[in-house]
Every structure is written in structure tokens, then in C-alpha cells.
């Protein structure tokens, strides 16, 4: 059989289009990869995928009718940014088309088990962001937080913060991926900032009470510790060091 590498634009719609194309042309992918990922395979045939919303929607619709929550999970796997994600999603789609209930209950199957593991990682990262976002009140009354999550979880965390902070404008910004989510009291939008390093806020941008509350929080954090029970190993397992730079209590 011919080896076919599908090269797509890196978007979820593009990936669904690639899956559509592979079914239409009856050419199974040996790889599906975004433009910017280098491939070592020299002799494979390359199929360029032109992202087509109509094709993507047809795939999405079909998968949603089979199992809505499973389809959402495929999107989460896509956000994991693992190199294996595209082919894994493709193979899960194949299982879904055969027997969609199997795709979420037969953990003997290595792909189904792998998906479960990735979903667990994603869920943990979403939960970490729910926990580790630290808003700073800016002088113009926007509440700002910089984050650097392990995976691209921004699309998954907006609804939590929207429900919780319905009455304050906020911006959560992923420094690593260069985009953020802004809530203007009505709706959330994805935004990109021009600033070179949006994580470093000069003090005159902050609300006049901001530093005081950060100090109070630090005071609180230090005084609830029970020294007789100190256990740094456990501490670091719960709050890995890579998150510390955005946690004021750890600075």
C-alpha cells in the first residue's frame, strides 16, 4: 500500500478535513502532520490538505451523532499538542465508526487506553489552571493573569472563569503560545497582545491596592503552614516548580 502523509494547517478543522480526505480517497494516512513539523519519511506520498469548513463540519456532525462527549474528547486530545495526536484521533475515529461504545469502554485497546491517559493529562492541566490563575487588578480595572500551561488548554478554561467572575473584566494570557482570553462583562474573545513581554507588568499599571493584597496573600500562605508537618516532596508534587513564577505566594 502507498504511504500517504497528510500535511495540514495545524487547526482542528484542518485535521477533520484531512480525515475526510483520507476516507474520500481511500488512502489511509501513515502520518498526519502540521506544515511546521519535519518529517523523516522521504519516500512517502504527500497529500496537501486544504482546510474546508464544509468537509470538517460533515465529519464533526457525523461524530457528534455517534457520541457527542466522545467528539469533545477528540478535540481535547487535539489540544494536547502531542506529536501522536493526529494519528491517534484518526484511529479513534475509525473505531467510532465501527462501534462507538467500544471507543470509550474497551481499555484493552492501546489507542483507547492512550486516549484516556491523554484526557487525564488535559483534565489535570485544566484543573491546575482553574487553581493557579492569579489575577492582578490593573489600574483600569481589568484583572490580568499570565499563564504557561503544559498544553493548549485556553479553549477549555473560559467557561469556568466566565461563570465565576461574571462581574469583573478579566484577561488570561498564555505567554507561551502568545494568545489570551478576554472577558468584557458580556462575552469572551480570544486576543493577541502586541507587547513584547506581556507577563512583566510595570508597577504603575497596577491598581493601587494590588501589591498590598499580594502581600496579604503571601502572609496568609506562610502562616497556615504547619512546620511540624513539613513535607516538601508532597508540596512539590502538588505544585510543580515550573508553575511557581506565576504564583505570588511562591515568589
Amino acid at each position, binding site marked *: 500500500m502507498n504511504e500517504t502523509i497528510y500535511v495540514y494547517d495545524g487547526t482542528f478543522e484542518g485535521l477533520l478535513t484531512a480525515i475526510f480526505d483520507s476516507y474520500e480517497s481511500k488512502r489511509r494516512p501513515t502520518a498526519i502532520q502540521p506544515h511546521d513539523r519535519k518529517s523523516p519519511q522521504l519516500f512517502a506520498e504527500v497529500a496537501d490538505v486544504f482546510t474546508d469548513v464544509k468537509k470538517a463540519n460533515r465529519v464533526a456532525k457525523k461524530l457528534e451523532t455517534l457520541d457527542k462527549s466522545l467528539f469533545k474528547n477528540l478535540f481535547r486530545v487535539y489540544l494536547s499538542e502531542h506529536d501522536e495526536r493526529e494519528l491517534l484521533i484518526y484511529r479513534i475515529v475509525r473505531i467510532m465508526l465501527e462501534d462507538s461504545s*467500544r471507543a470509550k*469502554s*474497551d*481499555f*484493552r485497546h*492501546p489507542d483507547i*487506553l492512550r486516549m484516556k491517559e491523554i484526557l487525564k493529562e488535559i483534565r489535570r492541566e485544566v*484543573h491546575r489552571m*482553574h*487553581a*493557579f*490563575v*492569579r*489575577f*492582578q*487588578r490593573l489600574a483600569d480595572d481589568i*484583572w490580568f*493573569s499570565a499563564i504557561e500551561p503544559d498544553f493548549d488548554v485556553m479553549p477549555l478554561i473560559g467557561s469556568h472563569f466566565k*461563570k*465565576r*467572575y*461574571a*462581574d*469583573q473584566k478579566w484577561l488570561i494570557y498564555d505567554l507561551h503560545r502568545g494568545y489570551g482570553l478576554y472577558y468584557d462583562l458580556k462575552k469572551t474573545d480570544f486576543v493577541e497582545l502586541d507587547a513584547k513581554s506581556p507577563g512583566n507588568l510595570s508597577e504603575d499599571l497596577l491598581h493601587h*491596592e494590588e501589591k*498590598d*493584597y499580594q*502581600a*496579604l*496573600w503571601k*502572609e*496568609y*500562605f506562610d*502562616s*497556615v*503552614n*504547619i*512546620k*511540624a*508537618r*513539613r*513535607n*516538601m*516532596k*508532597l*508540596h512539590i*508534587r*502538588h*505544585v510543580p516548580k515550573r508553575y511557581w513564577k506565576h*504564583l505570588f*505566594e*511562591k515568589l
Partner: protein
Amino acid sequence: MNERVREKLSILSDAAKYDVSCASSGSKRKNTNKGLGNATGMGICHSYTEDGRCVSLLKILLTNHCIFDCAYCVSRKSNDVKRAAFTVKEVVDLTINFYRRNYIEGLFLSSGIFKNADFTMERLVRIAKQLRTEHKFNGYIHLKAIPGASEELLHEAGLYADRLSVNLELPSEKSLKRIAPEKNYKEVYDPMNYLSEKIADYKTEKRKTKSAPLFSPGGQSTQLVVGASPESDFHILNLSKSLYQDQKLKRVYYSGYIPVSNDNRLPALINPPLQREHRLYQADWLMRFYGFDANEIVDETHPDLDLQLDPKVGWALRNPQFFPVDVNTAPYEAILRVPGIGVKSAMMIVKSRRHGRLRQEHLRKMGLVWKRAKYFISGVDQGLRINDWKPERLRSQLISTTVLKNQGQLNLFG
């Protein structure tokens, strides 16, 4: 910056930290009318202290002035510590400002007793009420129910709080009276029973109409200090069992006694009994999620938990006739009793086997603790059976392979 607030925060959070409850889950308070906060779904630990405990709520005392002299308590009257008291406004401002910055899930407010129970309870309720009504705050609020407070105040507390708790503190009335002479079990059980009745009413009401007013939707909890008095684990776990069954508590917390004084009413402990506390939490988990009865975990002939061994392994070694469990055919409840298999892997096992036979290679990847489970299962081309082993030999095998590596304190405060 108001230095005074900072000092108060330091004193009154330090004094509150020995209450180990940190849960911020189980409530159903939604953000309606564009207020602040949303207390639905699972709890969130926003940080962890260096001792590895969850920081979820702003946990403070309103004051550490106290008319009581309970020996286990750092705020007891006779203890020479700095005293402070927050104003209502200070607590409200701290809660709102910490919450808006996503530092916390809400407020856990307790207090030393000043003047009397009602006077104290009324202040706690006033703060919760102000947060809910004036600030449209829908975050989590955990209030202490002060023993001896009137039913009117307890009722009002239930309207504003997501969870209420009244601490038993000592696992028997005899110990309580010896260590905390001004307290008695009746004054603790009265509010607990009143609340459990009201919470049950609220649940019935809610089944009829969705709009039933909330009453402590996250239920109630309590705390037992462990190691400050002579009660056995058998006694403690049977007490917990009755608290779960009769008072319908959501959680019983165990707090390994940490010496906060040299009071001669208390034992001279060098280190807090963290391992015992850890085993008690494991046993508590077995009762709540694994279908074990207190009397299966400990009994009159084995009244204390084995500190070296997970209580689930302990039960398995005392009941070799139950094993091996065939993972391909046994019911879920039996699989759940296998050491090394937790709720999640048990679910994966029963789901997966509908599609075909499970083999060893499948199980080893499903996240169960194979090196423990392997002694207790069958049906997966697996030679080692508990029948081939003498329990004593297996015991030392299991201790050397798993337990010693894991001597640190696990986080079970969730």
C-alpha cells in the same frame, strides 16, 4: 497598607490552621444575576502549603480570644499567645479581594468563644449574610457551628453557608471532659443533630421543587483529634461509621495531635502521629468508597490499624478465603476489594471485559498497582496465588515492596 490587618491575618490564620477541613466541593450555589463567584462542582486547591496540605479557603478565626481552656487548643484561655479580632468588614474585604484574584474558593470562618455561644455565632452569621446579600457572593462559605448556639442562629447559618461543621474534637466524652472541661458531648451533638435534620428536610424539599431555598447544600462535617487521648482505632472508626450513618455527615476529618502546649492533661508526644492519621484516612476511604464496614477493618481482637500496612491489605491477609478474585468474572464489588485496585481501575476492568478477555498485559497498563494486586487475582494467566502463600510471608513481602517506599504522608485532606 494597614499593618494591623496584616498582623491580624497572621495571628488568626495561624490559630485556625489546626482545623484540617479544606473541602470546597459538594455545593450547588450557582452564579445568578451577575454576582461574584460560583460554587458548583468540584473543589479546587489553589495552592499547597509546604506541609503538603491543600489551600482552598481563607481559613481564619474571627477572634482567638476564648473563654474556654481546652488543653489541645492553641487558643485556650491560659495559653500565652497574642490575641486579635477581625472586624466584620475586614473579613468581608479579605474574602472578596482574595476571591477576585482567584486565590481561594471562599471562606472558612471559625472563632474562639467570646462572651457566649450565641454572641459568637451571631457574628459569624452576620459576616456570611453580608457576603451573600450585600456583595452577591456565590463562593464557598464554611461556617463553624458553635456548640451551644441557638437553633435560630443555626438555621440562619444554614441559609448562607455551603457547609457547616461542629467538631467533636475528642473521640469520647470522657476524654473531652478531661481535656476540655467546659465542653460536653450534648452541646456538640445537639447542633449536629439539628443540622442533619434540617439538611435532610432541604434535600426532600429540593426533590419536590428545584427552587427550594439552599440549606447548607454541601452538608456538614466534623473533626476528631487523634493521639491526644487513649481511644483505639476500633473505637474511632465505629464512631465515624455512626456519624456517617446516623448524622449523615459528608466528612469526618482526623487530625493527628500536634503538641501545642506542655499541658499535663496531654501525652508528651515528640512527633505528631502522622502515620496513624494516614491509616485512619485510608480506613475512612474504605468505608465510604469501597463498601467496607468499620468492623471488617478493625475489630476487638485487632483494635488498632497496622501502621506498616494499608488497611485494605490488612483485611485481605486476614481473609485469604476471599481470594483469588477472578477479574474476568467477579462482580465489581469483589474487584474493588483487591489490594492495589482502586475505584477507577475497577471501573475500567468491568467496562473492558465486556469486549473480550482481560489479560495480564492489559491490567498492567490500566493504572492499578500490579505488584500488590498480582497476589490476589486470578483469571489472567497469572501464577502467583495467595493460596501458595502464607499470610505472614506475604505480609513481609508487601511491606518491603510497597509500604516502606511510601512512608511519607499522603494527601488525604481533599
